[in-house]
């Protein structure tokens, strides 16, 4: 079995955010708000929860991580590079001609299980991986990070139904619940509340947590499955753009490229948090 190596997840989250900021700046990429929203979740996962080995990224016993919100690929690339899956230097090729680091996450990179980008795909794939693990009696777990926006997709709920029907207790869905979707707040588009009740009524064991509180995230993720025989859902209440004041809770920063003064100001804020 692979033992996770534990690192300071707060420092890791800070580095993920700084990398992502530089990457989107250099490549002209977007989705910085979505990356900042889940940077703490990624840092806690890669800071000691996931049993993965950068020297054997395809190890049979590894935990599988599926980033269903593929537009936060920059955040996952940063986490993987920081954990030694590939050189940190590679990050700045993000979005650039000829790079493997596409804006939406790509399985060409070591440590990335699947490519995503179209919403509502990841949980179905995670279901398949988890079902296979269960058939084989394997010990590894499957973690899938979703956006709240992709809970609009019917396919997400098809996958939710399947996981509870087949008691995929080796499956953990984490929802980055920042309450903002593509171009508007969730409340103005398709309200998801009562959100936890939806997952519970679909047969999942649900916990809610502050998605920026590392201790809370860690203790919840270390306690999966929350209930034996059920898939686990962790609703992480987050702030889109978390970490840079002027990006927080802003639809604009789903798309805007951090440049010039904005880039400098954002970097200064992140560095000030050290």
């Amino acid at each position, binding site marked *: 079995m692979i033992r996770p190596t534990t690192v300071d997840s707060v420092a890791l989250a800070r580095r993920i955010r700084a990398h992502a900021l530089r990457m989107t700046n250099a490549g002209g990429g977007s989705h910085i708000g979505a990356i900042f929203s889940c940077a703490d979740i990624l840092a806690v996962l890669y800071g000691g929860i996931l049993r993965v080995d950068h020297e054997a990224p395809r190890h049979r016993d590894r935990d599988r991580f599926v980033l269903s919100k593929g537009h936060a690929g920059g955040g996952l690339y940063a986490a993987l590079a920081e954990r030694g899956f590939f050189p940190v230097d590679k990050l700045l090729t993000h979005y650039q001609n000829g790079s493997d680091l596409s804006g939406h996450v790509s*399985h060409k990179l070591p440590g990335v*299980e*699947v*490519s*995503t*980008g*179209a919403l*509502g*795909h990841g*949980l*179905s*794939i*995670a*279901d*398949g*991986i*988890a*079902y*296979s*693990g269960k*058939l084989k009696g394997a010990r590894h777990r499957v973690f899938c990070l979703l956006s709240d926006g992709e809970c609009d997709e*019917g*396919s997400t709920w*098809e*996958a939710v*139904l*399947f996981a509870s*029907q087949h008691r995929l207790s080796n499956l953990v869905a984490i929802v980055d619940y920042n309450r903002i979707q593509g171009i508007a707040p969730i409340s103005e588009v398709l309200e998801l509340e009562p959100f936890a009740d939806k997952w519970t009524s679909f047969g999942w064991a649900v916990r809610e947590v502050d998605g920026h509180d590392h201790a809370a995230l860690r203790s919840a993720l270390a306690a999966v499955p929350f209930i034996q025989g059920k898939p686990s859902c962790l609703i992480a209440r987050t702030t889109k753009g978390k970490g840079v004041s002027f990006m927080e809770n802003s639809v604009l920063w789903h798309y805007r490229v951090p440049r010039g003064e904005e880039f400098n100001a954002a970097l200064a804020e992140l560095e000030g948090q050290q």
Partner: protein
Amino acid sequence: MRDAFVRVLTELAPKHPELMLLTGDLGFGVLDNFSAQFPRQFLNVGVAEQNMSGLAAGLALEGHSVFTYSIGNFPTLRCLEQIRNDICYHGANVTIVCVGGGMSYGPVGMSHHATEDLAILRPLPAMEVFAPGDLWEASEASRYLASRPHGPAYLRLDKSAAKPTVRPGEVFRPGSIRTVREGSDVTLAATGGILGEALLAADQLAEHGVRCRVLSVHTVKPLDTATLSIAAAETQGIVSIEEHAVDGGLGGAIAEALMEAGISPGFFVRIGLRNTFSSVVGSQAYLRTVYSLDAASIVRTVSLKLGIAEEAISR
């Protein structure tokens, strides 16, 4: 064809524990035996084709050889993006099985007819596309897909099937066209069960001295351009025949391949649906007559091209 497929899968499942059959809640009475014998290799995923396809990709990434099974467009068009992104982009070992190719489910209505599937699945990178013409081809294509690791594939199974065309000792070669009847006047190239209509038409034309070469294009992708090129050179023209839209299907594929190879047949006619939905009610055989896909329509088309008086044929 469906039964032939299930028979092959049932035969191979014990030898290939990695085989898995997923159904989108269809196959009443047909899959019971398989599910009872191989519960670990069978999953009814419910009426949820998108999830079925993503799930199949996930299973395949973990080493399973997966078949997704449903009717008409449900396992294909309904979940096209999962097929494209999850299955094809990851090169996943998944075979999508459509039972009811073309207008197999005749009177049930257009919702259950698969008449654009070949055109839509064919351009997906790495996807192999099979549409067997008789039961032997259906069995052999199933066997090929179930007995060795491969990338994404589409298996289009028809309710109708041509009478057996196999020769003693013949070996099925995926990706190659079978010449099921020799002839030097005209080439009839058919895909799917409608091969039966092509053979009937060849019989009728033979009575008038027209010798048809009949090709069974059981593999639409990759397409056997060599056999088509030879047919273009050795016969006066090519007629493509499919229970499918002419655009992008077999007719489209042949046109692309020959044009690019710099070969132009004496004449080229595509028989299939032309910018139309199959909206008339009726059996598969009846609908073939309505949409001019039956043997008589093929005979008419060929006669016209060869300048044979219509009265001579219809008499």
